[in-house]
């Protein structure tokens, strides 16, 4: 590592004007979405203009906020400005909301606004022919507002509330083409699965609130992530030898795992590709799925509480292993998929695993840098895929593409850049540096398991992306229709993102680790000596080799082949049953189908039966017993008592006919008389009670 300069950063916590107005960033898109909701379906231009305009202004404010933090950082201030207020007051406990401006939120704000804005612009082209164009922008705006709310939140409750808005809009957007049953089902699955994680998250919040008495992250020493509360949490025991801090951290991680598609809650993310492609790019690549990673970065002090210098904690170890397992697991599945978007979806799951592992192993800056670079190149890849799908007339199967490099030049070049960034192609692509940071942290870890897993994952990543690009852009043309390039409004955002996929390298190299220093409130000296770190050069060499081998293998098997769209995949022939296992995604969905879902269905049917038969039966039995008694009584009455009586009373029966109308035997009539009697009684009572 680089020798840290001894500069001490002084805290800067007083809220400035920009912090006080930070709420505008999420509020503007939300207001815009409200206005769009009221617009008529035909008002396309105002809808798009409102959405893009509001997010554009948000971006400007976000940049101003970023500049403010940057200015503080350059003046050696550790900026963490908060603005808190009480939402509800119950007894002595106050439920507080608030927002925070620090390097973490500033960087994330700019990223979300910027990538979001590009995706909004791209959507104008992509959704141009959709009849529900207006509604699309309404949801998109609401989503952006919710996501920005997650980013600025200084209260875990505000974060959760925004988190749920994000989940809801994600549901609405995945199911946007709800006339496709698969889309409606995928939307439901996404919502329910993430909600499973959310309940753990909510329990974590309740526990945190009960233990620390505050929901705020930072509040001038009284927040839940500040040393006083943390040391308090460390001393509380939660059973199984865990401290309360660890237990809460794990609960929160379960929420993050649901949102960020970590194993075993990853099943919804690939299905979510049923949504329109800009949605996939915005929600399932750049922002929402990153929210889980952001959450862990935000509560990092809690996750790492109690670690000795350089050590790790139970919570972080869990994060690391889950992340590493996800990275490999999803990469394996991605190798055997044929849907262009599904490959990207599994690659997203895999990369989110990298981010989690990075957080667990190397701290906030390592995981978070990968989040930022990934947001750019994955949004680029998804939008590129959207452009391809658009160009080949809504075809998504890569076996039915091929040879598109000549027809779609801009898309090809930008997609290629995105692909190389994702593979981590050495030196010029941002993905290389961010992934290298994670590998380096894994290599320095006490246990080497995660390192080997992540390295293997990197090999697979390079391999399956090469496979995909070969299928789509090279070889013979297998599409049913003539392909065409997409309009400028779609390709321009691609070019901008491609630029950043490369340019972001500049801030994360070991020679000038500006990004890391900025987040950690350290000075960032520029020194080439950073490369001379022992072991670093060899590690970089190793990871470069891994990537090159992966790409080489992929190109060897798939590159520029003339083949039939219905031919078996080359690997399928070689791997046989393993391929089937991968292509069927390790049968995880089926496993859930026969375990969890079957259990709930069984329980539901059982309780329903219980309700109808047992409780209903008891009620029916009671009614039957009373009915039986009534019948016995009637029998006694009619046979014995009435028997003798009737003879003598035959003359009276004519008069009885009138009364028999009253005794109609209908319960409602009886009750009606009962009611009338009662009302009369009450009236008399009221009358007699006059003062």
């Amino acid at each position, binding site marked *: 590592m680089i020798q840290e300069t001894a500069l001490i950063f002084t805290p800067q916590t007083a809220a400035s004007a920009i912090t006080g107005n930070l709420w505008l960033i999420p509020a503007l898109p939300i207001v815009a979405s409200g206005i769009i909701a009221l617009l008529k379906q035909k008002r396309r231009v105002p809808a798009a203009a409102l959405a893009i305009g509001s997010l554009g202004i948000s971006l400007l404010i976000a940049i101003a906020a970023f500049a403010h933090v940057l200015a503080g950082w350059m003046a050696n201030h550790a900026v963490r400005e908060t603005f808190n207020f009480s*939402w*509800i*007051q*119950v*007894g002595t*406990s106050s439920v507080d909301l608030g927002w925070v401006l620090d390097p973490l939120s500033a960087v994330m704000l700019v990223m979300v606004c910027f990538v979001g804005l590009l995706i909004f612009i791209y959507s104008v082209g992509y959704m141009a022919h959709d009849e529900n164009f207006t509604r699309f922008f309404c949801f998109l705006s609401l989503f952006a507002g919710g996501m920005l709310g997650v980013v600025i939140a200084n209260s875990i*409750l505000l974060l*959760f*509330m*925004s988190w*749920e*808005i994000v989940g*809801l809009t994600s549901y*609405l957007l995945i*199911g946007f083409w*709800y*006339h*496709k*049953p698969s889309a*409606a*089902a995928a939307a*439901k699955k996404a*919502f*329910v699965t993430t*909600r*499973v994680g959310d*309940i*753990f998250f*909510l*329990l974590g919040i*309740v*526990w945190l*609130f*009960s233990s620390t008495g505050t929901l705020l992250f930072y509040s001038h020493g009284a927040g839940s992530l500040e040393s006083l509360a943390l040391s308090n949490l460390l001393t509380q025991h939660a059973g199984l030898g865990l401290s309360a801090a660890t237990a809460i951290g794990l609960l929160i991680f379960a929420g993050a795992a649901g949102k960020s598609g970590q194993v075993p809650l990853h099943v919804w993310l690939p299905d979510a590709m049923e949504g329109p492609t800009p949605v996939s790019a915005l929600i399932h690549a750049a922002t929402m799925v990153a929210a889980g990673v952001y959450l862990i970065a935000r509560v990092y002090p809690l996750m790492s509480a109690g670690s000795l210098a350089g050590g790790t904690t139970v919570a972080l170890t869990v994060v690391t292993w889950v992340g590493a397992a996800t990275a490999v697991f999803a990469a394996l599945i991605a190798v055997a998929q044929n849907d262009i978007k599904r490959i990207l979806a599994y690659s997203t799951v895999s990369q989110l695993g990298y981010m989690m592992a990075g957080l667990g192993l190397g701290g906030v800056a390592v995981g978070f840098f990968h989040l930022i670079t990934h947001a750019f190149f994955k949004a680029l890849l998804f939008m590129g895929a959207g452009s391809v799908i658009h160009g080949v007339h809504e075809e998504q199967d890569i076996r039915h593409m091929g040879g598109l490099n000549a027809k779609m030049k801009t898309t090809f070049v930008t997609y290629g850049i995105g692909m190389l960034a994702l593979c981590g192609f050495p030196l010029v692509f941002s993905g290389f540096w961010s992934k290298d940071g994670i590998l380096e942290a894994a290599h320095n870890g006490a246990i080497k398991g995660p390192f080997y897993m992540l390295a293997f994952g990197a090999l697979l990543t390079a391999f399956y992306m090469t496979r995909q690009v070969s299928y789509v852009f090279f070889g013979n043309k297998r599409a049913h229709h003539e392909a065409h390039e997409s309009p400028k409004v779609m390709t321009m955002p691609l070019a901008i993102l491609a630029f950043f996929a490369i340019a972001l390298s500049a801030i994360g190299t070991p020679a000038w680790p500006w990004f890391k220093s900025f987040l950690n409130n350290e000075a960032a000296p520029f020194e080439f000596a950073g490369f001379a770190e022992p072991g670093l050069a060899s590690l970089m060499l190793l990871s470069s080799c891994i990537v090159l081998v992966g790409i080489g293998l992929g190109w060897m098997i798939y590159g520029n082949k003339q083949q039939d769209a219905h031919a078996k995949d080359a690997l399928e022939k070689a791997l046989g049953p393993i391929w089937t296992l991968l292509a069927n995604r390790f049968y995880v969905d089926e496993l859930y189908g026969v375990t969890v879902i079957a259990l*709930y*269905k069984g*329980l*539901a*049917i059982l*309780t*329903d039966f219980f*309700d109808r038969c047992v*409780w*209903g039966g008891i*009620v029916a039995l009671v*009614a039957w017993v009373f009915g039986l008694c009534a019948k016995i009584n009637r029998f006694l009455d009619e046979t014995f008592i009435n028997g003798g009586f009737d003879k003598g009373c035959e003359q009276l029966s004519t008069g009885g006919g009138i009364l028999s109308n009253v005794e109609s035997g209908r*319960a*409602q009539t009886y*009750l*009606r008389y*009962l*009611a009338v009697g*009662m009302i009369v009684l*009450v009236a008399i*009572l*009221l009358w*007699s*009670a006059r*003062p």
Partner: protein
Amino acid sequence: MLAWTIYLSFAGALLETLLPKGKPGLARALALLVAVAGLVVAVAGYAAGFSQGRITVTDVPWIPSMGIRYILAADGISRVLVLLTGLASVAGVLFSWNIDKRTNQFFAFYLALIGGVFGVFLSYDLFLLFVFYEIAIVPKYFIIAIWGSTRREYGAMKLALYSFVGSAMVLIGLLASYATAGAHSTGLVDLAHAGLSTSFQMWCFPLVFIGFGILAGLWPFHTWAPTGHVAAPTAASMLLAGVVMKLGAYGCLRVAMGLYPHGLDPWGFSLLGLGSWRDVFAVLAIIGIIYGALVALAQTDFKFVIGYSSVSHMGFVLLGLMTLNQIGMTGAVLQMFSHGVIAGLLFAIVGRIVYERTHTRQFADLEKMHLSRRLPFAAWAFVIAGVASMGLPGFSGFVAELQVLVGSWRAAPGWTVAAGIGIVIGVAYTWRALQKAFFNDKLPTAEDHPKTGWHDMAAITWPEATGVTLLVAATLAVGVYPRLLLDQIEPAVKTFLAGGVQ
């Protein structure tokens, strides 16, 4: 002033019976007028109650020989529930706009029911409370038996029998307390200060709690609720779930817990891990939450889903009450309001907006109807109502359930975990119903094009749109700015807790 809510409703009911037959328009207009007037009074009374404790409205002797007095009073809890009743009654009239069979009688029963409910929430004399409670039960029976649907007589009778069993238990408790206290008064305040012995409270508390709890959907005495809800006409389901179930919960709080606080004390021994009536009822509440949600997951009838969801949501109210701490009980009262509004909305959509147009509530039939395209208003209204029902932030249910969860965590963390499971299942059954009823359509083919192949469904009418807007606005307003209600609930709960329940 709040007493006028009662008098207005009963006067309205009386006027309805005097209206000439065959003038449904007049009957509707009158009912709406009375309901709106009731709401206005409730809102005014609520607004006047900020930063005030209990306000006594009327206090006159009624049956002096027994020391029974006609006491109407309202604290923050009562005022919130009166407000809810006002809202629900207006919405109920709006969603009954299409009733043209014996319209004036319908609204007469309807307003009598509302009057009874207002009366319960405002009574501060146990006997008076009981009388109003009974008044509320009777019209309910007729509304279901005459204007109901699916197995209406069965549903109505089941509901009436359950209610009367509950009433009988409450009555025994009432008479026993009156006799034991020997204070020659049935006033709630007098009885609470009568110093009833702990051993007496120990058996009287569960008796009265279950008596009222039956109407609050306390498991396993909940089975009247789904059948009753399903059999009832829309407005009656709305009122049943919206306010009548709250009568039960309110009775549990005000009477059972208010008069017999020592009934909640530990027994001194533990049976199956349960050490007090408090544990027993908390566990029953949690079973209700999970059980209701699970049963809802297995239903094939749209309205049954909502009926069972009410059992589940009312479990949160009872659980909140059993936390015996400030935040949990505040949450319970807020949940009463929240569930009243949201359940009303759900029943309105299912029973009125959808059923009146499709004439079926079976998912198997609804699935084929492409409702998301033919009734987009209903579909989106149900999305909003469903989201509110599953407790998403921004809606009242979130604040309420959060407080109950925090409160129960403080009482016993295990309760919170179990209730959390109920929330997950809640999401599952809501989305299942939503998808089956509205969004399950297949891709329309060229021959079967949606815009030409279907006969038109009646357009959404203004009372429907107004009713939905009213209820959505209410749940949103409370969800975004909960202090609107909490500022009144919170001090009332504090006083209540300080008054002995601990």
